[in-house]
């Protein structure tokens, strides 16, 4: 790890101004930044710690009749433990509690969480030359390597790395917006599903953020589907592991069981936080029977592309979604 300098500004303006320096990174909880700096995958000579920014809204959880607003500096553990949010949208605390460990959730902030980097073993290990994400233009060691963990949706011939989070899949599913402050011009707001870029030919460019842009918060509209919502995560071991497949679902059902609205996000199978709109379309207007749940799962994985070791993710991903949908439909709300 190369020598670094460190600062801890108190205002958003000072923080984004500090990103004018070359080789400078924001750091929040540091659980991705420090980890990847130690193995020389992330290189920086200056760190701007954003955790002491004084704007109280950065650390606030605000609930109004129409929206939930989550400050970017809220700790994962604090959002998971928030009783109000649990009652309004059980999907949120479930996705957080099933991610990482309580120690990491105490450190990690929501802004850092959505920008966590892939766990692709070739990306993390600099002794492998070929990794287009770490070393643009060098190839991809995973394509014909060990790709059991890798993505089947949203892949390209340049990169098949999984986007690893849990909570970000929820943000993708529930129409969240991201609030962004930058050096130039007014703060802007974009749909969360536009934040991450598909790998395409440039897997090293992971988001649409400019390098001096700071995420300040997330806004979730309070749709009637939030209460009947759950997150199901399937792992190699029961806890403290990344998803092999996961599903974030939220449903608004009519009294006769017809799906008025559905929101579906998928994890463990895609290169970005994945919104499964085809599955939502297959559900809408139908009674949520097992057959309809299977039809939605077929639709969600119709475009899947597998490599030598990850074909199992198609049946696993489908079954995960079916179980999540039937589980949500059976919830007492």
């Amino acid at each position, binding site marked *: *790890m*190369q*020598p*670094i*300098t*460190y*600062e*801890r*500004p*108190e205002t958003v303006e000072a923080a984004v101004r*500090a990103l004018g320096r070359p080789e400078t990174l924001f*750091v929040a*909880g*540091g*659980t991705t930044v*420090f*980890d990847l*700096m*130690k*193995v020389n995958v992330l290189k920086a*000579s*200056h*760190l701007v*710690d954003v*955790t*002491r920014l004084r704007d109280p809204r950065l650390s606030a959880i605000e609930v109004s009749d129409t929206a939930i607003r989550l400050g970017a500096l809220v700790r994962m*553990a604090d959002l998971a*433990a928030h009783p109000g949010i649990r009652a309004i949208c059980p999907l949120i605390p479930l996705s957080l*509690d099933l991610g*990482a*460990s*309580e*120690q*990491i959730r*105490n*450190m990690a902030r929501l802004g850092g969480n959505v920008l966590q980097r892939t766990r692709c073993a070739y990306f993390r290990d600099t002794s492998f030359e070929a990794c287009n994400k770490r070393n643009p233009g060098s190839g991809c060691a995973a394509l014909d390597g060990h790709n059991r963990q890798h993505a089947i949706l949203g892949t390209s011939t340049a990169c098949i790395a999984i986007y690893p989070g849990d909570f970000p899949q929820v943000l993708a599913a529930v129409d969240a917006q991201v609030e962004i402050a930058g050096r130039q011009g007014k703060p802007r707001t974009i749909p969360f599903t536009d934040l991450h870029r598909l790998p395409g030919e440039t897997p090293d460019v992971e988001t649409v953020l400019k390098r001096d842009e700071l995420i300040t918060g997330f806004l979730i509209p309070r749709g009637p589907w939030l209460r009947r919502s759950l997150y199901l995560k399937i792992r190699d071991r*029961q*806890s*403290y592991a990344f998803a092999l497949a996961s599903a974030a679902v939220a449903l608004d059902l009519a009294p006769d069981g017809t799906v008025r609205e559905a929101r579906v996000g998928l994890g463990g199978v895609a290169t970005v936080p994945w919104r499964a709109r085809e599955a939502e379309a297959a559900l809408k207007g139908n009674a949520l029977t097992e057959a309809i749940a299977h039809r939605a799962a077929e639709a969600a994985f119709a475009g899947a592309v597998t490599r030598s070791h990850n074909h199992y993710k198609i049946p696993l991903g489908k079954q995960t979604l079916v179980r999540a949908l039937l589980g949500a439909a059976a919830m007492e709300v």
Partner: protein
Amino acid sequence: MPGDPNLPNPHRRNFLRGSAGVAIAPFAVRAARAEIPALDASEDARALTAVGMTVNGQRRRLSVDARTSLLDALRDQAGLTGAKKGCDQGQCGACTVHVDRRRILSCLMFAVASDGADITTIEGLAGEDGALHPMQASFIDQDAFQCGFCTPGQILSAVACVKEGHAETEADIREYMSGNLCRCAAYPNIVAAIRQAKPLMEG
């Protein structure tokens, strides 16, 4: 090489204590936490940064390279070797300490980021009279370790787990302790120790 008369005392703990004596001065200014100024960007990446923190109730001032983890600062500079370095990658929990009453992984925390923090390590858990914390006593009673390498992290994590309200059921304990791995697989005994300690901590 133990016993070689030509080498300085090879006992590692003494060595660490020795170096700690150089690196640490008692934190002289009795500043309240809020008075500690924001750290300024030093232009020289090789310059050391002074950080003030409270460790186990004592004010400490350490001079750290900005790359230093809180774990390395505690072990190599403060001479507190209770927190262990298992993986140094956030995966095992052996380095768990409390920062501002929350359990965190000291291997993934920059020491500079703990400026102004209140830190508890395993060395600070026993009472001032030396009486073991109920969690420490329960780990002994329940034989909740074999080699003991993961134990300081397990105990600090377990204390927090109870205080967070995440130790109501055995399933809860297993889930919320999952960030602490035990290579010796003392898990059933660790769960039993936490169940024993919980009412003692709350009583």
